């Protein structure tokens, strides 16, 4: 029997998670703001003639950094109140993310117990589970010390994504439709969630990677970095490229497995393993574009396009998740979502 009280508790935990993540996001923004101020102050302190070469050395353009650790972010060298405030906000953000993630995990688990099934039966639940993976993978990156200053770029999309889930996509705790009632739901959807979560994180990394590369190019050329200055605090483009590759190399086989598990389930449920259902088609499109990324990255002449390709692959994932799930009629359509019927009623 389902437990409505647990499902209620889960809804409450969802709101707490969202609040904690939102606060973490703000703390990251504050951290970045103080870091920038610190940087500006430190640059004012040194003569302009010295500042430019220093910047060049830091971005590592021209001089390869090798496999060693990153040069520390410029601000760490500038002592002063903004630096310590930055540290405070940074620690606060990490703490909020950690606490948020634990509450988030509790939310997903209570939802599962509340409905007596795996907690990924509708889009609200998928979104929540995917974010759990994104934030979890981000925490792992932090532990591995590969995510220096990535926080704000990860938490903004996470908060947006969860916010959409809690409002537009929200669905009451209900049992599953008969067609979903299979152990393949556990396997296929779990794999899809893990793969989507990690690939989404890689999408964030590849986007900032592109920004950072632009920043490095402009700064090396002695031009104003413009918007790309947002990536000033990030690790250099080389490192971001490596992080991006690692996440995709982890997520891509899982995505492959998810598509195959989906095909096996389709064979058991609908009679054929591949029917060119819109969702299947887009899963394949994302797969193809990620495959193109891996090929481009391992080919010297094409490597410069790799980050563009993985950003495109990420865009196809997002398209598949929102547009195909909600607007295109297929076997993966989510009847539990009001927006679909509302939008189709508009037509």
């Amino acid at each position, binding site marked *: 029997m389902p437990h409505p009280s647990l499902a209620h508790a889960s809804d409450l935990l969802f709101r707490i998670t969202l609040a904690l993540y939102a606060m973490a996001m703000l703390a990251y923004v504050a951290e970045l703001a103080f870091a920038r101020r610190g940087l500006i102050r430190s640059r004012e302190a040194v003569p302009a003639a010295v500042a430019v070469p220093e910047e060049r050395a830091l971005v590592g353009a021209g001089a*390869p*950094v*090798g*496999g*060693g650790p990153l040069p520390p972010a410029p601000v760490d060298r500038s002592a002063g109140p903004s630096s310590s405030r930055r540290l405070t906000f940074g620690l606060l953000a990490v703490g909020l993310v950690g606490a948020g993630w634990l509450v988030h995990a509790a939310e997903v688990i209570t939802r599962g117990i509340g409905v007596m099934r795996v907690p990924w039966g509708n889009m609200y639940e998928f979104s929540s589970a995917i974010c759990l993976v994104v934030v979890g993978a981000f925490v792992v990156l932090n532990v591995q010390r590969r995510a220096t200053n990535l926080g704000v770029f990860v938490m903004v999309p996470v908060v947006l994504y969860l916010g959409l889930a809690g409002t537009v996509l929200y669905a009451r705790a*209900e*049992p599953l*439709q*008969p*067609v979903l*009632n*299979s152990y*393949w739901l556990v396997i296929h959807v779990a794999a899809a969630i893990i793969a989507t979560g990690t690939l989404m994180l890689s999408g964030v990394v590849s986007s900032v990677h592109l920004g950072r590369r632009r920043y490095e190019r402009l700064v090396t050329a002695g031009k104003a970095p413009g918007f790309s200055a947002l990536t000033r605090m990030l690790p250099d483009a080389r490192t971001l490229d*490596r992080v991006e590759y*690692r996440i995709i*190399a982890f997520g*891509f*086989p899982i995505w*492959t*497995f998810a598509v*195959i598990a989906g*095909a*096996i*389930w389709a*064979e*058991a*449920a*609908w*009679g*054929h*393993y*591949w*029917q*060119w259902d*819109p969702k299947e*088609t*887009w899963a*394949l*499109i994302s797969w*193809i*574009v990620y*495959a*193109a990324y*891996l*090929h*481009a990255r*391992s*080919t*010297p*002449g*094409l490597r410069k396009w790799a980050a563009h390709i993985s950003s495109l692959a990420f865009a*196809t994932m997002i398209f598949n998740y929102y547009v*195909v799930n909600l607007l*295109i*009629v297929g076997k993966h359509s989510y009847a539990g979502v009001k927006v679909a019927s509302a939008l189709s009623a508009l037509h």
Partner: protein
Amino acid sequence: MTETTERPDPTDTAARAALTTKPVDVRRSTPARSPLQHVRSGWRRLTSMRTALQLLFLLALGAVPGSILPQHGQQDALVTTFINTHWYGPLFDRLSLFDVFAAPWFAAIYLLLFVSLIGCLMPRIRLHFRAMRTPPPAPPRHFAKLPRSTTWQADTTPAATLDIVGKALRRKGWRVLVRDEGLSAERGYLRETGNLIFHISLVLLLAGVAMGGLFGYKGEIIRTPGVGWANLLGQYDEQSTGRAFRQSELAPFSVTFDSFKAVYLPTGEPKTYDAYVTYTTHPGATPQKYDIRENHPLVIGGSWFTGGTKVYLGGHGYAPHLRITDPQGNVVSDDDDVFLPTETTNYLSEGYVKVTNIADKKQWFAIHGVFTPTKAKGVQGQIISGFPAANDPELLVNALSGDPSAPSVYDVPAGMQQLLGADKSTTAGLRVGDSWKLANGYTVTFTGITQFANFQITDDPGKELALVAAILIVVGLILSLRVRRRRFWVRARLQDGGRTVIEAGGLARTDPEQFAEEFAALVERLRPLTGATGPIVEE
């Protein structure tokens, strides 16, 4: 502690390039002169990575219209509407945009991609076999140029040192070759093996898909309880067969549909659907019972590798039972009549009963019915259904006179005349047991309700091959992304003081950070084995 020197990451150096058997990216070859050279340069361009990537993108792009536009075979009615309502509809149709995945241009893209893939694979397979039989290359002259290198001193002789190191490395799974000038070790061949397995399996997958398309078949059949069918193509309401399919390959089974059960939640959401059947695998076999439900098809025949024929529950609906008697009281129709659902949430259904077994063709007529399992009123006062189960069923009937034969069982031709009831009524709302007398003297009685089921029968002899290929794809992919190929060299020479100087160096093509850790750990392990006595920092 060991002093490990770090050097610039030589991504583009020859040493690193030597670790890959990948064909060089051909951008633009020199202008070809003879036809043979033309063919060669064309082939080189087709099998280049650049072309492969372009084809990959074309394939992804080509699939997009297939997911956005309605497709033949999935939404035929929508396709027709689209062609008729958009001025560019016929143009799209001519470009096969409503049948993308069977379109010649789509096939051209993936076939070219696979030709490019095979062309790329052949030399790689050859090179990989050669690489696996080739011993690791001799140590480079200057270890200092390698991404990782270190030096230490020991008291063992150079030969003994190399022997000890070789044994230790072999035990850890390295391939080792000891030469006069030093020791070479290499591991991680599985990376390329996995890579090749992945790409070969893609070709196998395509073969499996093609086999299914050539030798498989699909059929669809609607049955009411008590009725069955034998597995013959003529029996099916709809069917599609592969190009190389032969009727004699059909499994000789037969199925009788016994009953259907649907369970709904109080909200109207479906919980379970079960179609109970009795089947025999071949004529004369013992009949067996089976419950066909979602994710639980009936499987007939097949072996460990061939899946056999599967019977799925594809859909269901209501079949009101109507008895029609002529003015003399003779029964002219007494059947469960399949009514197709007009919506599948609450199963408001519609259907016809055609009376054509009367000698005088002018007397022919049809009964049109709208069936609501749970009667409710719509916003405009029309009859709708409020719940999918038959809690408060009603059948709303009217009658039409004329020849109702065409166009299908579920439709009547236009231009039939209205046939009134004996009491001049145009329609009648019937509950189970009610009758309606028509002006022509016939009587319609609603005697009961059953539910029909729509069965889908599929046989795809290529799907097991496709499954094996899919598993190999995942295995190959994991190997090619997880395993790292790396080389390790050790050189030992006698110093003037009678001690041995040991140099070690290594490189990995991918993931230099992780290799740095591995290299450090390896050196840390080897140093005590060789009886090390402190590091030397080299200039």
